[in-house]
């Protein structure tokens, strides 16, 4: 994917807009914290914390013991750590993930291994039925206002019916 993108200079705008693309090869190793404004592809070993504003791709054969966050996160290798994907997490059939995930969309292919807690935040894009929360949201402040009124009875006495 990334090689294709690199081969085509058809999207100079995106490339110029400070989106770098970093690849850690199979023999590369990172221990520590990494922040990338752009895409990250890991084929080697990473320990620590990894954050990318773009997509994170953990290739087959990679070993990651780190918290990973990105927009779209794809896991084909081994990941041990919490994963946050603001858009989507895909664990493909060769992938293995142990850790808690926070995502808005999750795809797990048959054959993948996953252990952990899933908390999925519903985004408006995916929700087929937007929950009608508005009445409750309106009702709550009324209750709060009453409670506030009872907390300060002196205010009521001092201003009985001036309004």
């Amino acid at each position, binding site marked *: 994917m990334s090689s294709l993108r690199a081969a085509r200079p058809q999207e100079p705008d995106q490339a110029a807009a400070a989106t770098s693309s970093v690849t850690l090869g199979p023999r590369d190793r990172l221990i520590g914290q990494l922040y990338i404004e752009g895409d990250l592809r890991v084929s080697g070993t990473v320990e620590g914390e990894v954050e990318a504003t773009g997509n994170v791709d953990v290739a087959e054969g990679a070993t990651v013991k780190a918290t990973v966050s990105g927009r779209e996160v794809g896991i084909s290798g081994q990941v041990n750590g919490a994963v946050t994907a603001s858009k989507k997490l895909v664990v493909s059939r060769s992938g293995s993930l142990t850790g808690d995930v926070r995502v808005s*969309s999750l795809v797990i292919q*048959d054959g993948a291994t996953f252990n*952990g807690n899933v908390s*999925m935040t519903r985004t408006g894009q995916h929700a087929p039925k937007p929950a009608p929360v508005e009445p409750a949201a309106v009702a709550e402040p009324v209750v709060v206002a009453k409670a506030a009124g009872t907390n300060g009875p002196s205010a009521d006495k001092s201003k009985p019916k001036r309004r």
Partner: protein
Amino acid sequence: MDAQQAVADTAPHEASEDAVESRRDGANRFTLGPGDSLEGKLTYAGSITVQGRAEGELHIGGNVDVASGATVKASIDGASVTVRGEVEGPLTARDKLLLGKSGRLSGDITVKRLQIEDGASLNGHVRMGSFEQSSGG
């Protein structure tokens, strides 16, 4: 079919347990229609399809299929479980759990294999791997 059943009935000694079980798995299917509802505890050797509403406990020997539009608030265990509707409760799939794109599942799940399609919703803890089959199930 009738002839086979008659043979099985008249000659129970010859029918091996495996044959009976496999035939049960194939033939026995409990379908809870869109307007149907179930409350309570169900232990069933065959497979079940839920299109309506179910609440309680489902201990299913075969497969469990929660269709799109169905609502299940129950602890479920089955061999292979497919969720395309809404499920709330702990779920155990002795073989595989398939969470379809229209599926919404909240609860802790224990599975041997797991497949989640894009668009599905899941909240809960996932435990996966080769776990010992509870033969009592």
